[in-house]
């Protein structure tokens, strides 16, 4: 699988609506491709962030205006970023503040990605975690050896679970994927908050704890 194919399917992967074979292909590709992992994490952040905002229905006039704007602009953008088709086809029911906040989140994520791709941080960064994805897209100013140990453990467990998962029945697989997604969303949110405020002790504590939870989850499914 190449990056374009992966990014076309990644939103359906997050929704859990892919066929078994496609899921396996995506996960294999994510295990090897940092760029696609970053796209997945950004989408997770956006989905998670928008879920936290209050629900307000926009007026019909707002939708009409948005649809007209989208119709004008969608051609070149969709060709450049295939995964945007996912956003296009979803009914998000976002209010204006929600849309503004989501746009802000996208701008921050893109800016952060550009900055980190141009300047290498002098501080040690958390490294990738294999198939189930601890993102390397964003820098985390934590150099705790606990993180490195846990990440090694997550890599090992992820590989083991990936090998076994192919034989699971759909219900078991779905339970695993759903809960792994929850943990990854929490990790993404922790990273997001740490990027905003790297000195935040509570976010650091929560992040470390979320890593441990990921280990617990993987260990729980390792013996199926």
């Amino acid at each position, binding site marked *: 699988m190449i990056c374009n194919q992966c990014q076309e399917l990644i939103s359906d992967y997050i929704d859990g609506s892919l066929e078994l074979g496609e899921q396996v292909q995506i996960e294999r590709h994510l295990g090897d491709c940092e760029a696609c992992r970053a796209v997945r994490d950004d989408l997770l952040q956006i989905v998670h962030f928008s879920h936290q905002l209050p629900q307000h229905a926009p007026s019909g006039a707002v939708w009409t205006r948005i649809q007209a704007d989208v119709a004008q602009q969608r051609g070149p953008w969709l060709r450049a970023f295939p995964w945007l088709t996912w956003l296009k086809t979803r009914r998000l029911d976002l209010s204006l503040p929600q849309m503004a906040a989501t746009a802000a989140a996208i701008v921050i994520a893109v800016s952060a990605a550009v900055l980190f791709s141009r300047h290498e941080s002098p501080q040690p960064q958390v490294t990738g975690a294999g198939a189930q994805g601890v993102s390397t897209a964003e820098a985390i100013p934590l150099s705790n050896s606990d993180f490195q140990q846990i990440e090694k453990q997550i890599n090992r467990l992820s590989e083991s679970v990936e090998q076994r998962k192919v*034989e699971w*029945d759909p219900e078991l697989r779905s339970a695993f994927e*759903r*809960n792994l997604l*929850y943990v990854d969303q*929490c990790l993404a949110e922790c990273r997001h908050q740490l990027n905003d405020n790297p000195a*935040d002790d*509570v976010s650091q504590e929560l992040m470390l704890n979320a890593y441990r939870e990921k280990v617990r989850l993987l260990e*729980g499914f390792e013996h199926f």
Partner: protein
Amino acid sequence: MSKSKSRQTRPAAFSSSLILIASAGLLIAATGFAGPSGKFERTYSPQGAAHLTISNVNGRIRVAAWDKKTVSVRADAAPSVSIEDRVVGEDINISVKRNFRLSRADFEVSLPADSSLVLRNVIGNIEVQGVNGHISVNSIDSDIRLVRVNSPAIDVKVTSGDIYFDGELREGGSYSFQSMRGDLDVTLPGSTPFNLNARALSENINLGGFLSHLTGASRGTKGVSGNYLNGGSRLTLTTYEGRILLHKK
């Protein structure tokens, strides 16, 4: 010569066979199966306070204290489910054999109040009532209810699901409740001193009537720490996508 040697060794071989058969019999006795009807029923008579471990995969676990000294475990399971039990002293270990499926088994347990519990599950709600021993609950996708519990130590971890606790904390005890995606709803007597460490990534912490008496507190949007009535037991509450709600009885 060889014949007499053969005769001499026969009793020894016979007794070895008997020992082997007896050992196999003991092993089989210690290992139960849900059986073709899907029912598992056992009664154990521990000499002291029981330590019960249940490792389930998919299904409800209900545990309630009773006045008897025995431990009764019943499970309704799918016919394909294999349930094993092992008893060593006061340790009773019951586990559903794992395979590639989420085979269902629902457990009903009655035991003495001073028993200790270790409950593991993947999917299925867990309820514990009236138990006073150590409690450890480890699940993935479950709502957890602990009611009328007066335990020296409790550790509950669940990935997705709500945790409800209505009980008492003991002086010097340790109580930890964690859900990645679910509410923590904790009801305590107003006279219970404790050291609180509450963390909610969702920034949704409501300490109710306890907040005004919290001393030495550090209060942020995602975390609150402090001592209630000068502290005592350690109460750690952690949720990521959910609320922390503390109520006075």
